[in-house]
């Protein structure tokens, strides 16, 4: 990791520690207002709006590694935020597509389980209006605008739809992951403006998704890292049978494996974010396959080794477990990524 990315991560970590003391704050404020507070701190106070937008377009011109470093901290804290879905995924598409929406909250209209490499489900666009429905869209709640993949007379387009109109319904549902809730979108002839069309639209979408998968892997490494640190701290403090429970070899070996997992996840995610363009898709598939499974595995170990306290609403571990479980399928499951990998590295089924 470069020293700039490292410094950025430190700053974000300090901000999150001061603003977001886990479940206590979440339970008091609710996800909505807490997310607004975290995102305001992130984008306005720390000035990270436009992180991945070039300086020519008025952004910060940051690297994907910078975004990955921020996402690692957001994953560790499990703070609700639209950083991944807006700053990393939607915003660069809008700005490179000529829309001037820097700093507003954007959301790409895709189901959050969209697998890599296949066709992206599209709305229908005609005469300045777009229609379509999408289930379980992350980052839709609180979005100012939507970027919508659509077909226009058989050709790909990306169109922009303003949120808050009657023709663009965002229906909140009860989400398994409480800190990244999903919503259903239903657009019925919603007024839309074309951002980009044809092959350029496909490329722009594919690149944004690829980069977001790299950043998601880093977020998952952050979840795993927090779960391990918190569990080690707990097993050193908790005593049963007259000894620290962390002195039992049954737990020591599992925690050592968890440490190996965390090191692997951090390395895979960093390499995916830092790799050159020609090798990036392979490394992103590797990172997505490895990191989502590791985050879930270590989060499960965290709950188990915390015993009863890990099952309580008050303890913050469950937020990570929920994020990690939903994250396994997010932007494509590990199996989807391995299937994609198979075609990239010539290992056909």
């Amino acid at each position: 990791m470069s020293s700039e990315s490292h410094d950025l991560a430190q700053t974000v970590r300090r901000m999150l520690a001061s603003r977001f003391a886990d479940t206590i704050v979440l339970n008091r404020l609710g996800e909505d207002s807490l997310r607004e507070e975290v995102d305001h701190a992130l984008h306005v106070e720390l000035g990270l709006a436009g992180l991945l937008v070039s300086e020519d377009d008025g952004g910060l011109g940051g690297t994907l590694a910078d975004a990955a470093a921020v996402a690692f901290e957001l994953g560790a804290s499990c703070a609700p935020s639209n950083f991944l879905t807006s700053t990393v995924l939607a915003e660069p598409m809008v700005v490179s597509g000529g829309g001037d929406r820097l700093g507003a909250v954007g959301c790409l209209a895709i189901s959050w389980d969209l697998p890599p490499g296949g066709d992206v489900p599209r709305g229908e666009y005609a005469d300045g209006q777009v229609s379509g429905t999408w289930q379980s869209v992350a980052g839709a709640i609180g979005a100012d605008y939507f970027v919508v993949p659509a077909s226009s007379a058989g050709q790909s387009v990306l169109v922009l739809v303003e949120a808050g109109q009657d023709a663009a319904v965002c229906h909140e549902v009860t989400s398994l992951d409480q800190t990244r809730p999903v919503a259903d979108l239903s657009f019925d002839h919603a007024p839309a403006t074309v951002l980009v069309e044809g092959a350029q639209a496909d490329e722009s979408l594919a690149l944004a998704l690829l980069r977001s998968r790299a950043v998601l892997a880093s977020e998952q490494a952050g979840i795993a890292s927090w779960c391990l640190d918190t569990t080690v701290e707990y097993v050193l403090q908790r005593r049963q049978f007259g000894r620290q429970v962390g002195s039992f070899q049954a737990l020591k070996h599992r925690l050592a494996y968890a440490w190996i997992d965390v090191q692997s996840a951090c390395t895979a995610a960093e390499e995916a974010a830092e790799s050159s363009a020609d090798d990036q898709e392979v490394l992103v598939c590797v990172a997505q396959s490895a990191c989502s499974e590791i985050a879930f595995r270590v989060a499960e170990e965290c709950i188990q080794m915390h015993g009863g306290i890990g099952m309580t609403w008050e303890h913050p571990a469950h937020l990570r477990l929920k994020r990690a479980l939903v994250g396994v399928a997010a932007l494509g499951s590990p199996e989807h990524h391995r299937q994609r990998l198979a075609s990239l590295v010539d290992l056909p089924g």
Partner: protein
Amino acid sequence: MTDLMSRVNDLIASHPPASTSRVDFLRAQYDAGLAWVDKPLGRGGLAMTAEDQQKVDRALRAASAPDNDPLANAIGLGMVAPTLLEFGTPEQIDRFLRPLWTGEHIWCQLFSEPGAGSDLANISTSAVLQGDTWIVNGQKVWTSGAQNAAFGILVARTDPTAFKHAGLTYFVCPMQDPGIEIRPLRQITGEAEFNEVFLTDVRIPDANRIGKVGQGWAVANATLNSERVHVGGGEAARETGMIGVVARTWRDNPALRRPALHDRLLRLWVESEVLRLVSNRVRRRPGTVPPGPGDSAAKITFARVAQQASALEVEFLGAAGMRYDDWTMHRPDRLALTGRGPGFRYLRSKGNSIEGGTTEVLLNLIAERVLGLPPEHRPDKGIAWNETAR
């Protein structure tokens, strides 16, 4: 950098590979500091980085220069050399290091004993000083390549009344001593990569002692931590090792492919790739950062992935996987983890999680040294070695 390449060119010009004997070329390469450029000046290196060595190796390969056949001396290069550099006297380094690197001297390791495997510090081979010569008696085991070795690194007990870790001393043992008897030890693969070594009144001059008397445990740990084998010197390419072999078998046999095995293969491919990325980071780390318990992680994963991948290959091959190439007892002179047939590869890989520290011991190491979890109960702690139950 240009300076480095001009050194390489000077070496090739002064010792044309086509007309220079292999040993003469390798000696000249060492003297020019181009053996391992990350090592110190005068020690075959130029105090540069391991990455620079890759450039040197590429240029030398392009000039058809010989290499030092690193696989034939894996213990010497990977374990003895770093230990000598850390604990050897200047005289010892001058004497041992160059012929070690050129392969003129093959090295073996005399550490484990029948009663001291994972609990290495429990060794009972004794060394008693008579004048300026140590008289050594005992039995060592799992000694690869002893029959070809000029020297062995030996840990022996020099003070049985001290605590077990404190009474040890580290030596360079001449393997031609008449008191040394080497017996091959046949393994589940059918071959005898290992030996038992019996030491009866073996004479080792005090000049061959590495480190202080009683410092053997610290020196031995430097050796064990360096077990990141030096083979190849540079970063590994994608699909190096067992996964590369299995991936080739998969590509060559489309008719045998089935979906459940496909996902298992891809999962192992991903794990191998992550392991490669992690290991390359370790290799890229400056030489000033000592290897530590954290490096054990790569070894644990390496062993598991090698076992699972090679077992998958046997299963994938079906009828062909039911055959074995050869059960004849051979005594191989080099490490061949990915050679021969799938059955051999699998059986050999079972040793990966045992040799050089069992997976279980390494997990304890990570848990205790990296994560700071409480140590295992050790009933022999704080007791003189000769008073402990064995």
